[in-house]
């Protein structure tokens, strides 16, 4: 069986499991979706009113990134807390494969609330849409990398939800605060703060060589860091016995 087929089977298994689990909590699913739509729409309108970015619709990348980053660590923690982690670990897939697959499912399912957000924004704001496949690719790489760093931290420290919030807040600074206030340090911010450059690139109708370079640099930097940090934290967790404790 080819690797793609193997991963497709895993993808279907994970989606089926997710649907079956969510069926148990219909109200929670509805509540989460509605609050997600309200929060993101409010952020988009806020940025449109007070910031000076020229394509506010592309803030819809932001909820996709949230899904990509948060899912792997939260699903790992859930498996550890429920107690299913040992069986998941002892499977024919690596932990990274399973968690990235869950992350992608979350990314795809986020398209539903995102479409509603897009419709709301379209009704009230007249902007040009620009969401290239290239931006989505960078978003995926960036989100998965940060997500896997949090997975490594979850293996060692279990609860890292507050760190996730920190990542969200740092990235929000970039596009919520008008650039005139942080223009001097903007380049450094964009280059180093995870995925901020990708969002800002998507939000611009005029992509310059500099913004493109910074976005690619930012993505490669976090992808590399994500791989190295995940690997070393995973090995440390196995060596120290933390992975086996729950």
């Amino acid at each position, binding site marked *: 069986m080819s690797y793609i087929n193997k991963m497709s*089977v895993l993808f279907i*298994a994970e989606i*089926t499991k997710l649907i079956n689990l969510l069926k148990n909590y219909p109200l929670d699913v509805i509540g989460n979706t509605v609050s997600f739509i309200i929060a993101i729409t409010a952020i988009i309108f806020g940025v449109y009113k007070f910031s000076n970015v020229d394509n506010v619709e592309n803030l819809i990348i932001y909820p996709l990134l949230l899904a990509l980053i948060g899912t792997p660590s939260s699903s790992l923690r859930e498996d550890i807390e*429920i107690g299913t982690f*040992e069986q998941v670990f002892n*499977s*024919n*897939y*690596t932990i990274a494969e399973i968690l990235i697959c869950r992350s992608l499912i979350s990314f795809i399912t986020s398209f539903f609330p995102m479409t509603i957000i897009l419709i709301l924004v379209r009704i009230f704001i007249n902007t040009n849409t620009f969401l290239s496949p290239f931006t989505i690719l960078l978003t995926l790489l960036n989100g998965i990398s940060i997500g896997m760093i949090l997975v490594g931290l979850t293996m060692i420290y279990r609860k890292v939800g507050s760190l996730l919030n920190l990542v969200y807040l740092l990235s929000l600074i970039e596009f919520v605060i008008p650039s005139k206030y942080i223009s001097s340090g903007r380049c450094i911010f964009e280059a180093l703060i995870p995925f901020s450059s990708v969002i800002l690139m998507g939000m611009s109708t005029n992509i310059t060589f500099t913004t493109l370079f910074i976005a690619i640099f930012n993505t490669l930097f976090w992808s590399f860091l994500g791989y190295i940090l995940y690997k070393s934290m995973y090995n440390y967790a196995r060596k120290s*016995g933390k992975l086996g404790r729950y």
Partner: protein
Amino acid sequence: MAVTGNIISVKNLCKGFAKNVIIFENLSIEMPKNKIIGLIGPNGSGKTTFIKLLSGMILPDSGEILVDGLNVQKEFLAVKRIIGIMPDTNRNLYWNLSGYKNIEYFAILKGLYNKRERNKIIEELISELNMESFVYKKVESYSKGMKQRLMFLIALLGSPKLLLLDEPLNGLDFENSLLIKDIILKFVKKGLSVIISSHDKYFLEEICDIKYIIKDKKLVIASPTNFVSKELRVYFKILDYAIGESLKKYCYEVIDNKKGIYSIQFKMNDYDFLYLAAEAVKNKKVEILSIVPKEDK
């Protein structure tokens, strides 16, 4: 199916946690294939750690572990494919899914990608473990014994060569313990190797080909004194003489013939007797008056 060679080869294994907590020191051991191997030791002695080292969940500080000739550190994915695990706790299930959905999900993770083949294997295992009556219900409604059987089935998915069972009898009643024992023996006949960690000396004595005890940071072959069969004497009153006839052959002495009070002396691993006695108590054919160790008499 006779299989030769070693399923486990451990060379100079050292493992410790934190400061001065050494679990294994220079442990070298070889465990033959196609055998049932028992691990016994007090709480915290390292039985579960040993099982987790074999599965690769915990890495050794130094030394080498080979499972069926595969190095756990270097060929980790290949090792995972030939191992089935039944962990200690019975929380290892998605409790708000049905037993069947749990099995289906873990079957895919264990490499049963083809749906038709997967369903066939699952149905066979469900029938072998007599789980038809509850497998479609949600796990949250299961008794401890049902969960234990479900976890045992999950451990068997993917045709493992080595089965690691951590306290497999936890929460099982007598009848289910016998069922698990029979299934283990059946799979060993097909070529499976089994490592069982348990507190239950009697179960290990009954089922294992080789028994190890964890002593002085090493695994040593358990001596017969570690597994003395405890003899008990049970005093009971016969309420229905129909069952009294079948129990009579075990009878040790008649205490009061008029009142129908007898005593029976038995070994804890005398499962034929235990099954009969359990049935008799369940059907209210006899009433147990007291159970005392043989030495007390």
